[in-house]
């Protein structure tokens, strides 16, 4: 990415090229970008519009861009602030949704698994990149191969194992399969470690420092950026995890937000789904991730292509 010999810069000082053709292309390009962004964001706006509507008027106002019969009822229903009778009257279900509890559970689940995954994967990535030992490539290949195992294949045996350990409906049972590593995390960090400069490490080794110390005092701090990125990506993934918590975390005390959402969707009485309530629920469930993204987005966006590129 560094430019080479200075002679190359000469062309820039020649006669300015006619602007017109470049402009059309740019206009076209910007239009396409605008379309892409619109297509990406519009559905979310529609989600908001529906969440602020009342179910009864949805049929008659299907194409109205503004909320049909503006009402905060949907949000109230999702947050458990409506009585069952009111809820049924508005087209929702009479059952309560324990929103705050699910939120707490999601936070616990996502945080614990993220912390474990990132840390243990970093350790393993260090071993794969900085240490030399027999069979290293073979083991790494094996780890990578697990990316290809369809999750559903391991889900049932894992479920049986968790059950036999008596850990069903506990946070331990929920977190265990995700706690230790994922092939992606190891791959991601290994690529980064490979490209890190070794000078400081080698200096430390010359001074007699052991690998463990080097890892904790040099490598980890230097890798703070990709570690943070990985943590963010992992957190998002764990927050949105659905299938496993569905199997293992049915009990209210450990149910996470995505599972709660699924239950909410299916609780509608024999009519159509409670569209406004559903959209309100999805918005609220997506909110924490969106907030995180707004706070740390630049980091995520800038580093997203990191794995395997450098």
């Amino acid at each position, binding site marked *: *990415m560094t*430019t*080479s010999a200075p002679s190359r810069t000469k062309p820039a000082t020649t006669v300015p090229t006619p602007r017109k053709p470049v402009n059309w292309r740019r206009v076209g*390009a910007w239009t396409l*970008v605008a379309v*892409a*962004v619109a297509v*990406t*964001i519009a*559905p979310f706006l*529609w*989600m908001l519009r529906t969440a602020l509507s009342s179910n009864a008027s949805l049929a008659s106002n*299907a*194409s109205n861009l503004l909320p049909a019969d503006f009402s905060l009822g949907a949000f109230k229903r999702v947050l458990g602030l409506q009585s069952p009778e009111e809820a049924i009257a508005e087209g929702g279900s009479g059952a309560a949704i324990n929103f705050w509890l699910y939120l707490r559970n999601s936070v616990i689940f996502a945080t614990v698994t993220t912390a474990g995954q990132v840390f*243990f994967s970093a*350790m*393993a990535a260090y071993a794969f990149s*900085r*240490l*030399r030992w*027999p069979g*290293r*490539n073979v083991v790494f290949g*094996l780890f990578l*191969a*697990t*990316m290809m*195992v*369809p*999750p*559903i*294949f*391991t889900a*049932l*045996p894992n479920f049986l*194992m968790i059950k036999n350990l008596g850990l069903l409906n506990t946070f331990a049972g929920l977190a265990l*399969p995700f706690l*230790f*590593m994922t092939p992606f995390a190891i791959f991601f960090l290994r690529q980064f470690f490979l*490209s890190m400069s*070794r000078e400081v490490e*080698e200096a430390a080794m010359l001074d007699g420092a052991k*690998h463990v110390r080097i890892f904790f005092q040099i490598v980890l701090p230097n890798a703070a950026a990709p570690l943070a990125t990985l943590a963010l990506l992992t957190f998002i993934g764990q*927050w*949105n995890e*659905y*299938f496993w918590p569905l199997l293992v975390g049915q009990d209210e005390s450990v149910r996470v937000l995505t599972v709660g*959402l699924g239950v909410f969707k299916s609780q509608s009485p024999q009519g159509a789904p409670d569209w406004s309530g559903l959209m309100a629920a*999805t918005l609220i*469930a*997506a909110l924490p991730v*969106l907030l995180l*993204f707004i706070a740390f*987005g*630049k980091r995520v*966006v*800038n580093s*997203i*292509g990191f794995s395997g*590129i450098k």
Partner: protein
Amino acid sequence: MTTTTARGAVPARRATGTGTGNAAPRGRRRTRSDLRVALLFITPALIGFVAFYLVPSIRGVYLSFTEYSVLGDPTWIGTKNYTAIFADDLFWNAMAVTVQYVALNIGFQTAIALGLALLMHNVAKSTFIRGALLLPFLVANVIVALLWFWMLDYQLGIVNEVINWLGLPRIAFFGSEQWAIPTIAGVNVWRHMGYTALLIFAGLQSIPNHVYEVASLDGASPTRTFWSITMPLLRPVLVLVLVVTVIGSFQVFDTVAVTTGGGPINASRVIQMYIYQKAFGESDFGYASALSVILFVILALVAFVQMKFLKGNESDLD
């Protein structure tokens, strides 16, 4: 690929080895001590790998040779599950439907992502735009599926309202056999195109500028530059993206489960949906495990073929 300008540098980064040619005598002594330390570092990940990937996989393979309804005990039936699968119309349907889905999904997703990446690289570099494009990826699969299920609803969905307003007949996106899979493919393209675009964009960023300058000096048109320079240099990234997205695409489930459930008739009964149905709907875990084994083999083959054919390990930069 990040080796500095010296073209003749040892392609150290490409191979999996770490730096070569350092203090050789020290290296020999270190190899032995590295193993012990390495084991220490690797142990947690190894535990995770063995306990939650390796052992279940083996158990899954074992279960595929049994008849197991979960509420009883597994009974060994040999290869009966596998022979039944090959005679099972629904299995072949699932494969056909899944392949159709993957082709549509990856085809459109990669093309659109490539286009978006080029746009971002040449025109719109702002973080806001990149962030906006990434938005759908942040939201859970289930949520995206429900959102589009609502927007594409036959009676009340906004998309059909627009179609109706244009004077065209409404489309039963999730209810019609021809539209079900393309619709689901489309929903997932929407979800992943931003993320994939960013991956490719990063790859574009890593192509050195001087290559382009040489090309423009030689008078190459943008199209020519694209096909003869950008694409070849982008190949490792594209291969990586393709391998990962194809593998993911084969395993589509959440979207189908929440919207069509495999219908209408069997038009969207993708392989993972079929496996789930057999396992949890019909309590036939043996059969479902056999199906999973087959899926795994197919995925491994697909990845292998892709890597081999597209030569993803090499980079034209070196």
